[in-house]
């Protein structure tokens, strides 16, 4: 058995795949100048909507301090240093310059639902009042042929400028017969291609749109695929998770407004500001993991004491996402917070790989970071077996920490 707890630490917190949060003064100064210019150009453009952020903030009774608190939170989420705060505030006010079109394909509407409850100032104020949401099937006012027309108009009018948000997978089996849309009955595939053609960037929201999600789970009856399997030659951003965290959707839009570019992405096209580190790296139960204190079974004493959920199937160590920091429903809580463990919903194929309550040790998972996690798995397995034969959690932790001999003496 590996005989150092430091090993666990090293493996689980290694920097290799993590975002570099400090790129140096030069980098940020450059970005700052670029963003300033970009914002002043945007400011000269006529707003698409005559509602502005300052008004909204005032009429909604959100005071300046609360707003600034939100701004500094969002700046941190975007992994920008505090000097960007005034620019982020300004970008928020310029949200009405960027048209957004949101389409739903093979989905459960979970991301739209999540979006309806984003961080304060509530998304109603932020996104729907100020952001120029040119089309959203569920939320817009128009219905029927009017809605069809509105979509066509938006795409025509904002050619090359709009951000296309896509929610849901695309069923490719049997010529796309499992999903058609609109009066003409075009397939989801045709619809996606047509809508993305003139978009400035395409943003796939939720695990269905990014990696095929649940419809693509074995045996993938409808031949579901994600947006990136189909849309090429276009800036594409993936915001996976089920549902995707609205804070990250807002973050991507703000980043685009600030810089005119997509944020830095990982190999799976996920913005590093949100997916640059693992759930496990910032988990509130992490101290228990390090101490070898695990929930062995739901409802046991460990569960009552909020110990680590690794052994009851938590996939936090394999999952890149920021929900341990951002949480859900305006920061109310997150799955690990209520003792459920992470199911790895922002990773490709998580349905088949990480399904519920299957401890990683037995699941034969290939790690996103490549190779390394196998050691961790075996190591995890080592811990499991050790406890199973009754050495006891404390003894294991101490043994792992290399204090075996002392411990033996005590006993």
């Amino acid at each position, binding site marked *: 058995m590996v005989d150092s707890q430091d090993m666990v630490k090293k493996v689980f917190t290694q920097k290799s795949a993590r975002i570099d949060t400090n790129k140096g003064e030069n980098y940020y100064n450059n970005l700052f100048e670029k963003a300033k210019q970009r914002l002043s150009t945007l400011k000269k453009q006529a707003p698409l909507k005559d509602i502005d952020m300052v008004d909204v903030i005032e009429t909604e009774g959100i005071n300046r301090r609360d707003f600034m608190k939100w701004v500094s939170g969002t700046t941190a989420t975007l992994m920008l240093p505090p000097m960007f705060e005034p620019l982020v505030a300004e970008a928020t006010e310029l949200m009405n310059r960027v048209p957004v079109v949101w389409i739903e394909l093979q989905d459960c509407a979970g991301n*739209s*639902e999540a979006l309806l409850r984003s961080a304060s100032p509530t998304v109603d104020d932020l996104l729907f009042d100020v952001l120029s949401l040119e089309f959203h099937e569920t939320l*817009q006012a128009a219905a*029927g042929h009017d809605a069809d027309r509105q979509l066509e108009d938006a795409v025509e009018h904002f050619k090359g400028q709009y951000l296309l948000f896509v929610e849901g997978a695309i069923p490719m089996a*049997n010529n796309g017969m*499992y999903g058609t849309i609109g009066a003409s009955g075009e397939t989801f595939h045709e619809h996606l291609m047509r809508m993305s053609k003139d978009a400035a960037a395409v943003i796939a929201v939720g695990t269905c749109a990014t990696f095929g999600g649940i419809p693509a789970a*074995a045996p993938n009856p409808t031949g579901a695929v994600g947006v990136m399997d189909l849309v090429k030659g276009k800036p594409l951003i993936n915001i996976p998770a089920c549902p995707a965290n609205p804070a990250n959707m807002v973050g991507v839009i703000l980043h685009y407004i600030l810089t005119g570019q997509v944020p830095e992405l990982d190999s799976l096209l996920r913005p590093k500001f949100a997916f640059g580190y693992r759930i496990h790296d910032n988990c509130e139960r992490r101290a228990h993991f390090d101490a070898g204190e695990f929930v062995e079974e739901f409802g046991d004493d460990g569960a009552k004491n909020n110990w680590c959920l690794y052994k009851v199937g938590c996939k936090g160590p394999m999952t890149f996402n920021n929900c341990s920091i951002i949480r859900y429903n305006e920061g*109310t809580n997150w799955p690990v917070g209520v003792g459920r463990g992470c*199911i790895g919903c922002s990773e490709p194929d998580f349905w088949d790989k990480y399904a519920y309550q299957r401890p990683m040790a037995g699941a034969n998972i290939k790690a996103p970071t490549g190779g390394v996690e196998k050691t961790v798995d075996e190591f995890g397995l080592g811990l499991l077996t050790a406890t199973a034969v009754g050495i006891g959690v404390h003894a294991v932790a101490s043994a792992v920490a290399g204090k075996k001999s002392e411990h033996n003496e005590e006993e």
Partner: protein
Amino acid sequence: MKTLNIVERIEGEAKLVCNWEDEKITDAQIQFLNFRGFEYILKDKPALDALVYTPRICGICGQAHLKATAQALENIYESVNEPLYITDKAKLLREIGLNIEIIDSHIKWFYLFIMPDIAKLSKDEKYLKYEAIKGESWRKGTYAASESIKALAVFAGQWPHTSYMLPGGVMSDPTLFDIMTMQNYMDQTLHFIEKELIGDEIENYFNFNNISDFDSLNGALSDFIKLCLENDFHNLGKSYNSHIVLSKNYLFESGRIEIKNRQSVDLSLVKEEDINSFKMNEPRRDNEYTWAKTALYNDKPYETGPLSRALISNRKLIKNMHKEYNDSVLTRVMARMDELIYLVFITKKLIKQVDISQDSFIPPKLSLKDIGTATGISAVEAARGSLLHKVTLENSIIKNYDVITPSVWNLGPGINEKYGIAQKAIIGANSLEKAYIILRSFDVCSVCTTH
């Protein structure tokens, strides 16, 4: 004349194909053209995996699916004579969770879909506040819904798509502080409902006997009633007027009503037909036009949902309205709002009853793996009506998983010369706008309908 229209703003999309004669709809088809195949995906998966899959059938009613799965798996234990003991605390948390989800769903449905559409039928400027996105009421409604759902996130971890229930109880252990937080959110919801929706205190509302009690009030319900009467919605939207509720809880009773006689229900008489529905991997026949199937009880169509629940549980205001206006749009929408009001009231009480010193979860003595082959069934009242799950395990792996959603009862195609519930309700409408509102009165959810 034949028309084809798209119905949006329903969580997904539906197609409405109508035949017209003398400016009236004489035939209507409601088509759902998006399909994911959950029942196929669930096959061959370990039983507990269903707890993570089924909530994803729908982004709005995931709690109902979660509860249905947990209970279907518990029913498997019963079927092999090893019933699980679920503590009151766990039972309460499950019911509270589901109630909050229904509360959220009802608020959004009314403020995001029903009111904007019906307000558009009037030229009176005072209804501009209901306009989608811009209107003040729209915004207040969205805000109220997103605040109330936080009461669920407190102990469920997130919403949508939580998975905190499992056979034997729930995983979460709320603290006293959590319980207080939940109560605060419910108080806010109650306040919104009194101030914005009713325009009166809830105690007074519980004494209302008829729609005339709303005459002097200023809430959204009074506006809704006025708009309904102006546009004939007290006569429109009638279907078979037979109702079914498959399960019961603190507020709802199970049963079915045809004309006036309430009878008990037997889950084994529920079945699903796909005569007019598309089938996986089979060429389409001319009569097939939707992914929705047809749910029947004893071979007959029934309406399910808040109106059915109000009638079977004998809630006064709705019972009285029903005497006068039958299963019209007016009664159906009011039943859903009446349910919302009762649910907020009851959920507040249920939260108080949670005894945090009890266990949340008692591990089953047997693992599902040891059970091998068995079948479990469960029914749950979801926002839109009765939801049924049936799971068969073979060697502890899912052999078959059957889901019958409320929308399948209400929105599935008719068969054997009989129209489906919503189909029948739409026939007779004299404008497309009205047909839309009739359809919406069933709270359409296309992703649930087809799953």
